[in-house]
């Protein structure tokens, strides 16, 4: 199950996000890291230092692309310029699979640059799945969609979030990037049991797992990626790999970024849960 059609039949293990403050350390020290996840949009440019650094990273490491602006749930068709740039980057990185979020963020070409939550309706399932298929057909690469953290729910929703995720990925025949931190954040914001979510998704479609930290406020939790992973999230992770098997796992740390070693060591904690699953 860990190596499946949705992650290009790979078995990457534990990786971390490639972030600018770590460039110098990675290029000079060449630390052993299973793989890096890059934010696609940071490299969908025409030239300069970011692409130069990426090419150096690609000489040494496996890289998987993660997008933040495809907006599968947005009303307009995929932006052709966006797709062309993304495909050029896919050819450059040779990413075995590609991920982006199950969300929307633009309307008629105006962008919010946020990951806005979907109404969980059958209309939204049909629309989103169709767009995922179009993007996959153009890029000719497996796609996995990530569940987002959310702070709002809609009156029109006809199912739970995990039912919606399942309907979309089965209708689009794509993979899941299961973000267990996002599940935890949303469960606290919307009062559901996060284990119901983890137990409710089709495990055979899980291509990758995200872990991360978040910030607690008085009345809600915000997905800030600026803290270590908390124990309840590790428990969800343990359950996720118990169901999905050893799966490519990625720690996201995007703000107040500590040293490379600190981030990498936090990510490697995932291995102890993987070992437990293998032994069991």
């Amino acid at each position: 199950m860990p190596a499946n059609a949705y992650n290009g039949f790979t078995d990457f293990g534990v990786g971390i996000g490639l972030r600018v403050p770590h460039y110098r350390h990675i290029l000079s020290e060449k630390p052993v890291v299973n793989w890096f996840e890059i934010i696609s949009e940071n490299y969908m440019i025409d030239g300069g230092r970011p692409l130069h650094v990426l090419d150096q990273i690609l000489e040494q490491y496996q890289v998987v692309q993660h997008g933040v602006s495809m907006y599968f749930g947005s009303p307009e068709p995929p932006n052709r310029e966006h797709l062309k740039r993304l495909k050029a980057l896919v050819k450059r990185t040779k990413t075995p699979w590609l991920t982006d979020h199950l969300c929307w963020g633009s309307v008629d070409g105006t962008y919010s640059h946020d990951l806005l939550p979907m109404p969980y309706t059958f209309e939204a399932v049909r629309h989103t799945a169709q767009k995922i298929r179009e993007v996959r057909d153009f890029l000719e690469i497996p796609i996995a969609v990530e569940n987002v953290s959310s702070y709002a729910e809609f009156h029109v929703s006809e199912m739970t979030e995990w039912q919606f995720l399942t309907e979309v990925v089965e209708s689009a025949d794509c993979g899941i990037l299961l973000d267990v931190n996002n599940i935890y954040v949303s469960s606290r914001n919307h009062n559901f049991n996060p284990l119901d979510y983890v137990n409710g998704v089709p495990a055979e479609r899980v291509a990758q797992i995200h872990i991360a930290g978040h910030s607690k406020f008085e009345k809600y939790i915000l997905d800030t990626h600026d803290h270590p992973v908390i124990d309840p999230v590790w428990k969800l992770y343990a359950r996720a790999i118990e169901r999905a098997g050893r799966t490519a796992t990625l720690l996201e740390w995007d703000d107040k970024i500590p040293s490379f070693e600190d981030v990498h060591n936090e990510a490697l904690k995932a291995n102890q849960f993987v070992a437990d699953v293998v032994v069991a």
Partner: protein
Amino acid sequence: MMNLHEIQHRMLEAVMQPLTEDEQMRPRTRDGKSMHDVAAGFIKPNDRLSSFERLEIYNRQYWLRLLGSLEEDFPGLRTIVGQSKFEALCKAYLMDCPSQSFSLRNLGSRLEWWLRSHSEYLQPRAGLALDMVRLEWAEIEAFDGASEPLLIPEHVLATDPDPHFRLQPYLSMLSLHYPVDDLLVAIKKDNPGAEMASNAVVERGKQARLHKVARQKPQAIFLVVHRLDYSVYFKRIEREAFDFLTALREGKNLSTAAMRAFEGREIQENRLLGTVQGWFENWSGLGWFCVPKSTDQDLISVSGRQS
């Protein structure tokens, strides 16, 4: 029941509405409706937050993210106009010119154009501020703009005595009224990583920047914003060199560009040739010339045949 498109239209409109001065979501929409009613119309409340408060989280995030992006891209403009005026102009700009690109990199692409008709945000230093915006956008373009295969001018001159030359796409030439290059370098040197500094250091940096802004006197400069070894540089050039490069970029051939550069000036032919030759040697070393588009395609097909 609202359909998907209606929900998305309504939510995006609310998310992009400016916050109040104390960073709250506005109680009324632009057309006067109660925002509480609008939010309750499509967003569920929970046991801790009303529909309005849940929508407000996204409204705040939108402005935090986009204002942060502009602050990062235009630290020079912020220093010149001051933090509060900078925030006000960014909010007004984003209302008039919301992002039309999937990438935040392009968020400031229309800022200079917009500011030219909104100079009230730049007073009393509008000229200085406009020069700075042009420089900061050119810096973004030079950082990650396209580069083409390098051209060796001598190779072209060997086959065509009066050729056209193409400049690297990432290169910008700016005719400025103030020495904003020095000012921007000083601002960045003062505050290389504000989040790492103590308040005292930030305060000293702020004072130093304000003094530098106050000292800025008009001075015409001609600047090339370029890239070398993946770092961005500002290079001042003479007016003649600027006119020459501008003519080349416009597609003029070598002799026409030289005539334009020295128009109305008496200069001996030998000296003119020597000057132009010196420019080419310098600029070729900096990688400013690239292979013309048609030759580019020829090279690709040749390399395809070879492989």
